[in-house]
């Protein structure tokens, strides 16, 4: 067998309650969702985990519903389910756009939004969407339920506010007021991890978040303020440079990312700001 699984164990809980108890007793057992991140690492031989906790069968972590404009998305919701959901299409078109750009169909059928969030890569495509929508992460443990604002969830590069025995059960995503905008720049349309990714909500109080330009996904509050107070795009672009800290890595360079981030900000504001064609038509 090419992959070393012989000495690894799989815990298979039958309910969320069961899973939380196992998570508490064996916090080192890594939760398994769609496995599109985990099995890459496992096949590569770079995964230290000895044990795993199977979430895939837990239907309590599936489902999409909406209450008072807040969309609740179960952690195990796949990209395909997000793309096909009428609720998501209506309230969060930018999340549909982001999901369509993740991997190819095979990845979209298995990869989950909870896995994208928990994996905590700064390049995760749904993360800027969750950041601009001011989402809230629903965490469960044997101690109960905890709600953490998404923008407080990451504490540094690939670290989060989740306790070792917590599971992500759902994401609560309020429908933003204003036009939603998403753009990903990668090597090719499919299968490519972002070189840089942006989600934005337009209007008088714009909200902007970037991925792949800092150790975590970032909101740009100062840049947003410049635009909200009627500053020029040039002023906003200059402000933005102090709010991002891209690096050179395998996918791109810091200089490229700074330039493309500035261009994307311009494109976003042309499409959604007060000077946009839509605004001019009085919408």
């Amino acid at each position, binding site marked *: 067998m090419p992959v070393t699984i012989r000495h690894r164990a799989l815990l298979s809980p039958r309910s969320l309650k069961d899973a939380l108890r196992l998570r508490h007793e064996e916090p080192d057992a890594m939760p398994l969702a769609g496995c599109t991140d985990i*099995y890459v690492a496992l096949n590569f031989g770079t995964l230290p985990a000895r044990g795993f906790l199977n979430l895939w069968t837990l239907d309590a972590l599936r489902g999409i519903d909406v209450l008072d404009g807040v969309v609740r998305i179960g952690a195990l919701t796949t990209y395909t389910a997000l793309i096909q959901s009428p609720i998501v299409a209506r309230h969060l078109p930018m999340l549909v756009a982001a999901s369509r750009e993740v*991997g190819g*169909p095979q990845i979209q059928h298995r990869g989950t939004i909870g896995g994208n969030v928990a994996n905590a890569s700064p390049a995760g495509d749904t993360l800027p969407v969750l950041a601009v929508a001011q989402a809230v992460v629903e965490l469960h443990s044997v101690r109960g339920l905890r709600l953490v604002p998404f923008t407080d969830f990451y504490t540094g590069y690939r670290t989060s506010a989740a306790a070792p025995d917590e599971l992500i059960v759902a994401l609560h995503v309020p429908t933003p007021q204003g036009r939603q905008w998403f753009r990903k720049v990668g090597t090719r349309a499919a299968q490519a991890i972002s070189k840089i990714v942006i989600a934005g909500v337009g209007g008088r109080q714009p909200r902007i978040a970037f991925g792949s330009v800092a150790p975590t996904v970032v909101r740009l509050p100062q840049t947003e303020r410049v635009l909200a107070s009627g500053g020029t795009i040039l002023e906003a672009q200059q402000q933005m440079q102090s709010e991002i800290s891209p690096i050179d890595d395998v996918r791109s360079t810091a200089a490229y990312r700074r330039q493309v981030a500035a261009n994307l900000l311009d494109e976003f504001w042309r499409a959604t700001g007060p000077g946009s064609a839509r605004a001019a038509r009085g919408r």
Partner: protein
Amino acid sequence: MRFTLNGKRTRVDVHPLARLLDVLREELHLTGTKEGCGEGECGACTVLIDGHPVNACLVPAAHAEGAEVTTIEGLRAHPLQHAFVEHGGAQCGICTPGMILAAVALGPKPSRKAMQAGLAGNLCRCTGYSAIYRSIEKARPARKRKRR
């Protein structure tokens, strides 16, 4: 694990973390499913789970439990298979089983755009893709005839 493989109820004794790819190839000796990259990039290992294309290199056996799995061996004289042979959709053939299964999942008469999106997770180093798209287009009439 128990699952339905190509329409037949199947039971096989494997580690729950074994890759579905290895279960198919090593345990069940169905070697039509290929391994290219082993990391979700190439789609050579594509199989259908409950009708949806997935990468068998990224699916643990435990996640196929109770599911319906279709491999290339499960398609018998499918019009797409003939079309790939006739219209140059296959050259070296390593990507072909995965390509055909991903194409099957698109249903009859996919548009060019649907093909491009639907096969975006399948890499081919030989054909340049046009011959693959052509093969899928040419498979249409035969598929229609079969459904009658």
